[in-house]
């Protein structure tokens, strides 16, 4: 961009494309996003994870729960005694590690998707109400959110699961509830910022109803921080779900969830490094990918950093 500003006439600084019109916002966003190498890698990994999750039935060499009793704790293929039948080895009851990890992708993304959707939709509604109506509504909602934020996320999630009972579904609810305050606060702040703008007033004068004002006029303009938070929320959800699984409060065996896979293999940490190493690596890689993507999106969406 700086090169073109030097060579071209002042006033057409953005005119790298053929027309004089400024580039479409989405195109501009993509350009900034893909300039960031980390973000691109993150997005690529996320795409691979999504594909693995969607096509787990075709990609995974074995079933996630089939037990090969003749090959318990088989090492990975490159180690002595490993076989190409089980590329990443097998677990203590002879299930194929690679297949379980692939099916685990499905679970982790599902957990991320469900809990982020839950907290995003609830949080957006609460934030809109607080920012739009202000007054008592705002105080009531935001105080509640402050109370929830005073508890560390994992502690609150653990408490909720303790009440609801352990399990995958309850873990998703717990994580969704825990993330709620972040979305509510972000939405409220963005809504208050937008409310002062002229277009809101003119829509109101033009006769737009309350719901239309809230969801059609204002909400789309608050999307940027919410998209970033939703992406980062995915990594939080995956991490917290794995932690709950590890504590025995999330997905229950034999579900191939990464955290509970780790927990059930603990006693074999000395004899079979692969049963402990690979599930954790899977968690790390997916969390890292979502974090990279979220960071990249934030940088691309933040106008202050574009200069």
């Amino acid at each position, binding site marked *: 961009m700086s090169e073109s500003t030097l060579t071209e006439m002042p006033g057409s600084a953005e005119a790298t494309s053929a027309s004089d019109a400024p580039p479409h916002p989405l195109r501009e966003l993509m350009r900034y996003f893909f300039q960031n190498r980390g973000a691109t890698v993150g997005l690529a990994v996320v795409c691979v994870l999504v594909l693995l999750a969607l096509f787990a039935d075709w990609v995974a060499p074995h079933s996630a729960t089939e037990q090969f009793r003749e090959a318990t704790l088989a090492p990975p293929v490159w180690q002595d005694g490993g076989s190409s039948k089980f590329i990443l080895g097998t677990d203590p009851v002879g299930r194929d590690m690679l297949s379980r990890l692939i099916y685990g992708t499905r679970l982790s993304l599902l957990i991320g998707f469900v809990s982020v959707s839950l907290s995003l939709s609830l949080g957006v509604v609460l934030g809109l109400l607080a920012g739009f109506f202000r007054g008592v509504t705002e105080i009531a909602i935001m105080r509640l959110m*402050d109370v929830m934020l005073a508890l*560390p*996320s994992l*502690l609150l999630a653990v408490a909720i699961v303790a*009440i609801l009972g352990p399990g995958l579904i309850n873990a998703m609810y717990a994580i969704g509830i825990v993330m709620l305050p972040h979305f509510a606060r972000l939405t409220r702040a963005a809504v208050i910022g937008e409310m002062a703008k002229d277009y809101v007033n003119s829509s109101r004068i033009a006769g737009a109803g309350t719901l239309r004002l809230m969801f059609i006029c204002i909400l789309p303009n608050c999307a940027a921080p919410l998209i970033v938070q939703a992406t980062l929320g995915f990594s939080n959800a995956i991490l917290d779900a794995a932690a709950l699984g590890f504590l025995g409060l999330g997905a229950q065996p034999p579900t191939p969830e990464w955290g509970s896979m780790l927990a059930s293999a603990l006693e074999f940490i*000395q004899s079979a490094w692969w049963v402990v190493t690979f599930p954790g690596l899977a968690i790390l890689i997916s*969390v890292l990918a979502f974090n990279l993507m979220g960071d990249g999106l934030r940088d691309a969406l933040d106008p202050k950093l574009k200069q």
Partner: protein
Amino acid sequence: MLGFILRRAGLVIPTFLGITVLVFALIHMIPGDAVEALSGERGMDPARYARLVHEFGLDRPLYVQYLDYLGQVLRGNLGASISTHEPVLSEFLTLFPATLELSFCAMLLALLVGLPAGILAAVKRNTFLDYTVMGVSLTGFSMPIFWWALLLILLFSVTLGWTPVSGRIDILYDFPPVTGFMLIDSLLSGDAGAFKSALSHLILPTIALGTIPLAVVARMTRSAMLEVLREDYVRTARAKGISRLRVITIHALRNALIPVVTVIGLQVGTLLAGAILTETIFSWPGIGKWLVYAIQRRDYPVVQGGILLSASIIILVNLSVDILYGVINPRIRRST
């Protein structure tokens, strides 16, 4: 100044009340009530059930039950553990020093490594060093710490045999707890071996728990430093002929530290959450492990009291950070 402190402290009261409501509500959402839990699988005849419900006050309106609970809490009565019959508060106070010691060491590690790393990355911006620091800290930030702890055990305890796997000190050593902090108590006992043992037990949990705060501190320090290094007064100081090192450490760092202090305050929550996982893995006898056990045994008074106490600590730390912030920065003191 006093007015500022009082105003800030006043804001804490509704939050604390909110937490008590939340904790009270959580326990009341459990399917079944305390009487059913007592009766176990055999069940109980309806007359006895009704009498017990009345005895426990469970037939009163919810708000009366809540006010009763709040009154008990304010008098320091958090109930007794179902499994040990000890008061929850005294169990918490016995175990808390262990968590505090571990959290303190973890934070110390985060600061000792994170601050210099962040400063270096900012000063050497866009170099290999910067990319390495940022890459490592993003990885640390994304790390599932329960897995990280296992890897550390696998390498340092199992393979190399350098550090013990669990606990706070070798059972060979026995000395009276004075402060509850193993490092200090073992020093007071005058036994060098005991101190060495306590220290070696502390190393791996400290690394595991300190990793995420370390990554956060490094990232925050870097971005705060980058912001400050662009300021005019930094350039002025350089133009006056002050050495680069002095400008960075004296002029820039002091101002960059303000956002970093806030982040450090916020990490207390992370540390308490991390303690749940770290203490479980290293069998560290602190409140994290205590809470997990309580949940597994469905010891609800402990869960209720433990959550309330942890949240109170976090609120108090945030309050102190707020006040400290006002002390450092007069602009904040006046504006609120």
